[in-house]
């Protein structure tokens, strides 16, 4: 047998390190792992975007990250205590998510995958709606087009499927002339999230084909968190995933996804280029899932603690904190953020415990939006059947 050099195949039988931080030439990083501004060469064009940010905005990035981490930890605990069926932690990916979501404008349309809790929160979605999905009382959780939810779509659990929906929305924007008019405050764009594992799905490919063909105002935001459950990214691609987009002629950039400033800047520029009529853009954000895949997962089966530790040293929150401290943020600011995070976690716990049951009608009421005889019959049958038990011991 041929000696195989594939990490997918040779390291398979034991735990393994993900390949080293797979930086491609052209990686955009602004904030070093030590929290100091240390732009890579490719970051130069983006520095002005960061310079334009007010202190309040920088602090908001930090606040977003800290608060969601507290929420995420609380949700994980709630699952452990039997309150949720499952929880997919966002732990470690806060900078990629906050940077990109904060870069979107109000009128933009966002399509998360299923781990973008802070993206939803930033856009106005009540995180309890995510909790409700994972508790098993709803499949959706919220109405994307209720103005309070900031055009943020619900989670899609079939990996990659949402990329096509996003591209379809983008095609509609083109057909309706809602982008490319030159007015950045009104032109609409689409931002779609997916993972390194999902990138292998045919749907992601077809989405890029359609996006390039119709020149949708769309940003493909790939969070490469190094793992698809237990499978390292090298199994999905032996070349940096950022190159994938280039194959469609989609201008693409790789960013340090644990650097919230860089994530913000590249997303902001890409979204604005797309909304201005420049066609789709792709971003690969290098980050790390610091926790388990979900609460059902056991990462010790497939990765090493040394790998986890090496990424802990690149924690996006610590990095931003050091930076803000260096800029002279007040101790009271950090205390305030801690307090808010604590409060949000508390609130999450309380409201989760107070969540009611689920109405039976959810099963039948929305299978079709128009009347349907079979559904009517089954609804009626079930109601009669349930009634037949009233006052019955069985």
């Amino acid at each position: 047998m041929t000696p195989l050099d594939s990490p997918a195949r040779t390291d398979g039988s034991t735990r393994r390190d993900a390949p080293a931080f797979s930086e491609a030439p052209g990686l955009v990083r602004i904030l070093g792992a030590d929290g100091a501004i240390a732009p890579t060469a490719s970051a130069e064009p983006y520095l002005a975007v960061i310079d334009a940010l007010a202190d309040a905005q920088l602090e908001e990035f930090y606040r977003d990250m800290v608060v969601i981490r507290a929420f995420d930890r609380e949700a994980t605990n709630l699952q452990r205590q039997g309150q949720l069926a499952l929880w997919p932690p966002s732990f470690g990916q806060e900078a990629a998510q906050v940077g990109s979501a904060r870069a979107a404008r109000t009128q933009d349309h966002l399509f998360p995958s299923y781990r973008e809790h802070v993206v939803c929160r930033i856009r106005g979605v009540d995180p309890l709606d995510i909790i409700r999905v994972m508790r098993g009382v709803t499949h959706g959780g919220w109405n994307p087009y209720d103005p309070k939810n900031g055009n943020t779509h619900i989670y899609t659990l079939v990996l990659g499927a949402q990329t096509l929906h996003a591209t379809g929305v983008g095609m509609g924007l083109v057909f309706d002339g809602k982008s490319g008019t030159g007015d950045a405050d009104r032109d609409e764009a689409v931002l779609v999230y997916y993972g390194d594992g999902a990138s292998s799905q045919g749907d992601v490919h077809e989405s890029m084909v359609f996006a390039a063909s119709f020149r949708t105002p769309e940003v493909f935001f790939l969070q490469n968190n190094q793992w698809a459950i237990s499978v390292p990214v090298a199994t999905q691609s032996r070349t940096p995933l950022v190159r994938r987009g280039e194959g469609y002629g989609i201008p693409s950039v790789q960013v340090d996804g644990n650097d919230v400033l860089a994530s913000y800047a590249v997303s902001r520029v890409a979204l604005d280029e797309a909304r201005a009529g420049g066609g789709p853009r792709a971003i690969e954000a290098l980050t790390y899932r610091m926790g388990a895949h979900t609460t059902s997962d056991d990462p010790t089966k497939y990765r090493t603690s040394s790998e986890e530790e090496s990424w802990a040293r690149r924690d996006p929150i610590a990095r931003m904190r050091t930076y803000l401290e260096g800029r002279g943020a007040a101790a009271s600011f950090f205390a305030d953020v801690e307090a808010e995070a604590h409060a949000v976690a508390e609130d999450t716990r309380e409201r989760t415990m107070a969540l009611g049951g689920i109405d039976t009608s959810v099963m039948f009421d929305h299978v079709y939006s128009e009347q349907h005889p079979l559904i009517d019959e089954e609804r009626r049958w079930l109601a009669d059947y349930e009634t037949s038990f009233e006052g019955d011991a069985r």
Partner: protein
Amino acid sequence: MTDVTEAPTQAAAASTVSTMPLGKALTAGLRRALAENDRVLLMGEDIGPLGGVFRITEGLQAEFGPQRVIDTPLAESGIIGTAIGLAMGGFRPVCEIQFDGFVYPGFDQITSQLAKITNRHEGALRMPVVIRIPYGGHIGAIEHHQESPETYFTHTPGLRVVSPSTANDAYWMIQEAIASTDPVIFLEPKSKYWQKGEVDTSAPALPLHASRVVRRGTDVTLVGHGAMVTTLLQAAALAESEGTSCEVVDLRSLSPVDYGPILDSVRRTGRMVYAQESPQFTSLGSEIAATVMERAFYALEAPVLRVSGFDAPFPPAKLEGLYLPDPDRILEAVDRTMAY
């Protein structure tokens, strides 16, 4: 039944009846839907300048422009998936799948997305998407071009599935399907595209989800859809000459099924034969047989019999005459049911 008030109903002056092939009736129905609602758009492979491989969209891109009648990249999952996004953006996309056998690459987007999105959103989003699929045999074509995939769709909650068998139904049902706020799988009996019929553009004869008795009879009830309706009528004529009176019901709607006219008929005849081109095992025909037997148990003199394509892949074209139910095979079943 679907509320059809959304379908265009304005009365036209003078004669509103003309004769045209089923395929051209579809073109006319699509044209009217495009004209009456500028959120309607057509998308698919080769539907633009070529007008589709069956020319159903012929002339429509020239008339409505390339943003309303859209040639897409060659990818069925992409077509359905982006149609979903377009529907999210308020459009009413009508997708053409070039042939029955090419719908499967889009199956996940149909089954796990299109069919379930309204339910997943608890009614907050609607999915007025139509998927047009030319289906069935009788055209002597190569593999994947003659299949009858209806059961995959009828088994999927959230989808509506219909199939016209006449030009008039084609004209109206496509418009009603487009007007529906639910996803509709619109199965076009491709071998009947050239079959002419009268089209009355003044008002639809029946709602989208109604079945219809197309021939009265007293001894046996024959039921089917699409191209099979012609075959059933031929069988009924032959049976008559042999002394057996057959009632024929055109299903029109495959999901939901309008059991009213079927049960009414079976209660009178006591016997029923269902005909379909698709394989039989776990098919729409199985459902209808099981349900009719359940609901008209005491009325039945014989089990409901099914005449179907065999439980084999659609064969090479030269064998299609053997594979597809023809009047003789239906008569054989009629004879069998009469023998009970």
